[in-house]
């Protein structure tokens, strides 16, 4: 049996220079340097508060109390937004605080997300590496100008290889890039080009996401108004197939619906969450999960800041995930990863539906595990719905 995954820590930095039309993340634009520095200080403070309260404060049914030690953490993930919009010393300061207040595994994975144009200077990345950064995740999205324009991304295509080179020069252990496929107007050729470009630049990890029409985004409004085309699922399915072939040929192994990695370069933090592992969270709108409880911090940056600085609440809400919900979540996320999920974790399931899915070549039921096939990975949500009793 696999040992329970080590818990992780997620930190959210909401700032972006510009909100892209398709984005539905918790993002704040128009920040100034003073606000960003204030936020960095608050994030350090928040991590300190959480660490000091101990696991009893987040675990349901247990009384908060001193003497309850934290388990050793296996990963830290600073996501956004654009975390690298913070001053790199501020960002390094947060990391140092994290290491000071929570026990970290010797081989802890520390990821920071960045937009390529913010990290073309190796000098600015070095303090982060010194503070523990092991992994840089670049939001490249595409190397086609036409597609980047469609996506309202602000970088030139050649910024991507420059950022990758800078990360290498600064001593970042693993470099990952995010790509988006299926943008209306994108050609098959453009998509293959994007994949080839990032592979040529030398990456350890690729996340390839289908462009998604999220509700309440400017993009969704344009689609509703008829001024922009919606992404086409069949096209997306084709592109996903292209990604699977091209990345496999380049030696990257798929380990999740949208994630490929060289050996040893899987994102440990995300993998742990898909396996149902626990993680703490801090930052505006960040979601955490611990021992069957899920909570989220206040989404609005200003309210969150006031809360952390001492004049209000920080947690926006929480829920206890009951066993039925937990099984549903295990099914949803467990089928997303290529290693699959044990039957024990998701039982009971609709066995007749399982039989049909196995017969259709979408799912493998083997040695007590359920695992999506390559075809099945494109239809995990539909399969989860079918399997749910």
């Amino acid at each position, binding site marked *: 049996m696999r040992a329970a995954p080590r818990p992780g820590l*997620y930190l959210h930095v909401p700032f972006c220079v510009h909100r892209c039309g398709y984005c539905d993340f918790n993002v704040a634009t128009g920040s100034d340097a003073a606000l960003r520095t204030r936020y960095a200080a608050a994030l350090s403070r928040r991590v300190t508060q959480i660490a000091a309260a101990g696991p009893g404060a987040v675990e349901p049914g247990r009384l908060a109390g001193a003497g309850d030690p934290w388990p050793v953490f296996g990963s830290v993930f600073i*996501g956004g937004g654009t975390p690298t919009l913070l001053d790199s010393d501020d960002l390094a300061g947060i990391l140092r605080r994290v290491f000071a207040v929570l026990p970290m595994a010797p081989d802890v994975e520390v990821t920071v997300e960045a937009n390529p144009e913010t990290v073309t200077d190796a000098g600015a990345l070095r303090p982060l590496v010194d503070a523990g950064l092991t992994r840089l995740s670049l939001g490249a999205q595409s190397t086609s100008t036409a597609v980047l324009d469609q996506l309202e991304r602000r970088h030139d295509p050649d910024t991507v290889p420059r950022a990758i080179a800078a990360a290498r020069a600064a001593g970042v252990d693993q470099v990952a890039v995010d790509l988006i496929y299926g943008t209306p107007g994108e050609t098959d050729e453009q998509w293959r080009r994007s994949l080839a470009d990032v592979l040529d630049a030398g990456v350890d990890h690729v996340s390839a*996401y*289908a*462009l*998604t029409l999220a509700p309440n985004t400017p993009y969704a409004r344009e689609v509703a108004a008829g001024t922009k085309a919606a992404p086409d*699922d*069949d096209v*997306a*399915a084709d592109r*996903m197939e292209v990604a699977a072939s091209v990345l496999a040929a380049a030696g990257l192994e798929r380990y999740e*619906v*949208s994630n490929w990695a060289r050996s040893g370069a899987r994102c440990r933090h*995300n993998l742990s*969450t*898909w396996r149902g592992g626990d993680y703490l*969270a801090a930052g505006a*709108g*960040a*979601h955490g999960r611990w021992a069957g409880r*899920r909570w*989220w911090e206040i989404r609005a940056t200003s309210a969150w800041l006031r809360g952390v600085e001492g004049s209000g609440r920080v947690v926006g809400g929480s*829920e206890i995930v009951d066993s039925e*919900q937990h099984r*549903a*979540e295990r099914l*949803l*996320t467990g089928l*997303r990863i290529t290693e699959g999920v044990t039957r024990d974790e998701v039982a009971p399931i609709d066995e*007749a*539906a399982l039989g*049909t*899915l196995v017969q*259709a070549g*979408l799912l493998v039921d083997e040695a007590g595990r359920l695992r999506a096939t390559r075809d099945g*990975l*494109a*239809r*995990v*949500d*539909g*399969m*989860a*719905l*079918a399997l*749910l009793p």
Partner: protein
Amino acid sequence: MTYPIERIRNFAIIAHIDHGKSTLADRMLQLTELVEARAFRDQYLDRMDLERERGITIKAQAVRMPYRPLDGGEYLLNLIDTPGHVDFSYEVSRAMNACEGAVLLVDAVQGMEAQTIANLYVAIEAGLEVIPVLNKIDLPAARPEEIAAEIASLLGDDPDDILAVSAKTGEGVRELLERIVERVPAPSTDPGGHTRALIFDSIYDTYRGVITYVRVVDGELWPGQDVRLMATGFHNEIDELAVISPEPKPVDRLGPGEVGYFTAAIKEVDQARVGDTVTDHRSPTPQPLPGYREPTPMVFTGLYPVDSEDFPDLRDALERLRLNDASFTFEPETSVALGFGFRCGFLGMLHMEIISERLDREYDIPLVATAPNVRYEVDLEERLRQPGEDSSLVVSNPAELPAPNRISEIREPVVEGMIITPSTYVGAVMQLCESRRGQMLKMEYITEERVELRYQLPLAEIVFDFFDRLKSQTRGYASLDYEPGGLIAADLVRVDILLNNESVDAFSSIVHRDKAYEYGKAMVAKLRELIPRQMFDVPVQAAIGSKIIARETIKARRKDVLAKCYGGDVTRKRKLLERQKEGKKKMKSVGAVDIPQEAFVAALSVGED
């Protein structure tokens, strides 16, 4: 008080929907001062909400109106209101048989419609004195002379003899009442005869049991009398004997020619059937009144609860509905696709809609209804008969039709349809009838502009959408009525639908061989549209026996996965999944394919476009 028989006038009003029957009845109630203005509500006689909403009368009612004509004396007018739809033509005929006269009410704008003419013929056949009346003469578009000529030519009357009224303003209504007194004959009776009363309606009441409406023909009824209902053999003492005037008023006797109702602890309307004869249990008549007919459903559909756990509730609901509607039938049946449900029989499509609506409204049970069909008679091939098997059988569920090689003949119900249309649309109407396998029986010009067409049509071809098509082909001007015309042999086949190579019995349909290919093609195309893409390719096939006649493929949904699933996405996705799961419960699953409810009635609209 009782009235001498010579001062009783029993009459009905024959009118097309919207030609103003209810308004005229309301006006009569006011003129005879039975209803005070403040207690007045429109369409006083239509009791059911559904009737009021649809503006049609489903159940017959009777109202007793004492009336003093201008020349003195006091008369008793009984207005027997008749149902206004072809589905209920038998009920209409019984109500007519309770009368001696009929007011033929014709809209001075619209003119005669097929339904009116059909009912007129029923009235003439029943020997009723017909009083033609033009209504809505106050409307600017009224064409009184023209319509009067039309009526006169049909009745062989003098056009000048036709009364003109406006039920809306009340103009001419008193003259009409005068004429009813003058022209409608008094009822006749056999003075020494045994008690005989005609049931022309029965209504279920939660508190009093069945309320049976009767017209006394011979003898009399009184409270406490032990009465027998001859067709069913039920007998019991009369609890309550009353007339409606226009609210119920108890009476101690109903004599010959009188109209009223009684209760006798009758638990379901099936025991007090329309057309049956009521007699005295201790001194029964040997001779029931003529014309009784068992209620015969014409249209059948399978009703299945979406959630199989609702099956007992559905049975209860149907049993309760049946308490007050004996003309609808139900029997449990099993469908491979839909599980346990009921095969329900109705007088016609309107009747079916009414029952379905009541199930929905009053009982709130989510249902899947299969496409309606008619009832067939099937002769079995002699040499393939099982020992003990009958030589022929009745099929009201297409799935039960035996294999083609076991059938020597199939007979389908036909109707004799009467269509009245402006002459401009004769071509279109003929084309429509022929496309529905109609055989022309007669074509007659009523006037230069109006034509009466008679066709023999298979019932199956007209029950679903024929009327709508007729209306759209004639810009709403044509009207239709029909009566059963027996069973005739036809070259019919069952078209089965296979989803994912599994036959879905609930989709099976019996169609004419010449139309089978076209039907199969249209049906699979329709289903391809209606059934959402699934996790895998789903072939949709139409077949006759083992022969595939049409095929489409519902292409698999190739991508159905959230691109990103991190942090808070998991909760959101799980909640979405929980909602989808609820939605899935509302779908039936066959051969691992989720089928939305609307697909089951797809056959209804096949060939529409």
